[in-house]
């Protein structure tokens, strides 16, 4: 069933048990992104400690957008800011692949579970919500 390509086990797990959910006590940057077509909202906190990223987030949205935030936050926490760039690029490329790519597990780890989302044009924005918030925040933190 095509639907299972979308709702991978990992995605539903992260949706039900989100990681790094909750805003940080202290942060360097806070961004708030919304998906105007469906009303999903996400707030992302970013801080850098000794060159390592710490992410915290909160939001309301569908399984895809919330699981994506959870998986992204797990994946990027502890990484360096420069290290995060190729991961972000790989995720965006995967989302634009229209189902042609399965994603590099070395780079994306659990986030390859979103490969199926790229076959559902209406849901790509859901998967990208957190990542676009991160892109925005990472530009601000570099300044």
């Amino acid at each position, binding site marked *: 069933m095509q639907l299972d390509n979308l709702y991978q086990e990992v995605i539903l797990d992260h949706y039900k048990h989100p990681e790094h959910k909750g805003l940080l006590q202290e942060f360097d940057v806070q961004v708030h992104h919304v998906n105007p077509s469906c009303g999903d909202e996400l707030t992302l906190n970013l801080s850098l400690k000794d060159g390592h990223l710490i992410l915290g987030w909160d939001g309301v949205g*569908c399984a895809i957008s919330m699981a994506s935030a959870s998986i992204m936050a797990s994946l990027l926490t502890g990484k360096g800011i420069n290290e995060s760039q190729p991961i972000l690029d790989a995720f965006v490329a995967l989302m634009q692949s229209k189902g042609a790519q399965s994603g590099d597990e070395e780079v994306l780890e659990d986030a390859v579970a979103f490969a199926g989302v790229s076959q559902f044009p209406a849901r790509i924005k859901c998967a990208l919500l957190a990542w676009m918030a991160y892109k925005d925040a990472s530009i601000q933190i570099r300044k």
Partner: protein
Amino acid sequence: MSIELALDPYLIRSDFPIFNRTVRDNKRLIYLDNGATSQKPEVVIEAEANFYRNTNAAVHRGAHHLAEEATEAYEEARDSVSEFLGAKPSEVIFTKNATEAINLLAYAFTNAESGNRFHLTPQDRIVVTEMEHHANLIPWQQLAKRSGAHLGWFCVDDEGRLDLSDIDSIITESTKIVALTHQSNVLGTINPLGAIIARAHQVGAIVVLDACQSVPHMEVDVASLGVDFLAFSGHKTLGPTGVGVLWGRSELLEDLPPFLFGGSMIETVTMTGATWAAPPTRFEAGVPNMAQAVGLSTALKYLSNVGMRNIHAHEMKLTERLLDALNEKKSVTIFGPKNLEMRGGVVSFAVEGIHPHDLGQFLDSHGIAVRTGHHCAWPLNRKLGVVATTRASFYLYNTDADVDELVIGINAAEKYFGTI
């Protein structure tokens, strides 16, 4: 007058070619997104195509045979819209859609000079409601901004009805415009117009009705409604996209300044100025959407043949069936009236633990098309305390089986997402 026979949705479906196709791996199409747009019967598709095949020419501009026939077809379309609404043909303005119709009116207010009855000042007030579609909210917000007028609104109560308890302090003596929806596209609530119109007219305000969700689904007669302006979209009324209607009372249209300027809408033109044609031409600048107007006219005739009362009764039967099923489910919250009183065939709901987007996706895999999101009524969603809802909206071609499939689909989604 046609004799109204009870409506058979299966017979009706055979008039709509789209129901011959399947969706998502051979699933029967269960189309429950009629609030967004309706499907088209073959006669409408044919009427639009035939205009291009046989009659195409620019209307009102030329003495040749085709121009004559095109003009006749376009004006006949205006006649059938006016007949459908119980209006005069000269009161019917073709626009692109309801959004454009409402913007036309709002910008016409801005174009009104001091001394014109439509001229607004910072002392004036515009009243809307909390349940408006963005199309009947933002144009008024922006008009308030441009003119300095104050924007006020009626709130929505817990049952999804307008709270009219403060009507006199909301529609004040300085109110010039009261703009509201006939039926909510989210809640299905049909608004009680009587008290609002009476108060608005008492203070000299005009009443603008967003009839997008009523004209396609029930009998609407402008003469007995008592509103001053009314807008609806052709594409929600079995008609083509790209055509909508603004209806206005003649004595008001007489004084209303134009919104768009250009060809066709003028009386005389010099190098330094121009005067305007009489309504409705004044409001139809440029070569209009002729084929679409003709398609809309065919759609309205199709609806009249079935009978608007039959259509409403049929949709209410489906609504009752769905409400009964959903009211039984503890995990489902219905937004809006839970009974059939003063409501139409639009049902918005939430299923505990499943985001509307995920529910919509799941239902889609069963061939069921519903709308999920804020339905272009973001302030109302905020009031309801939800980010989004799932909405099923019915039309004449929906069947009991469609309703049952939806309920089965919701149950299956709860299993799939593990919420029960």
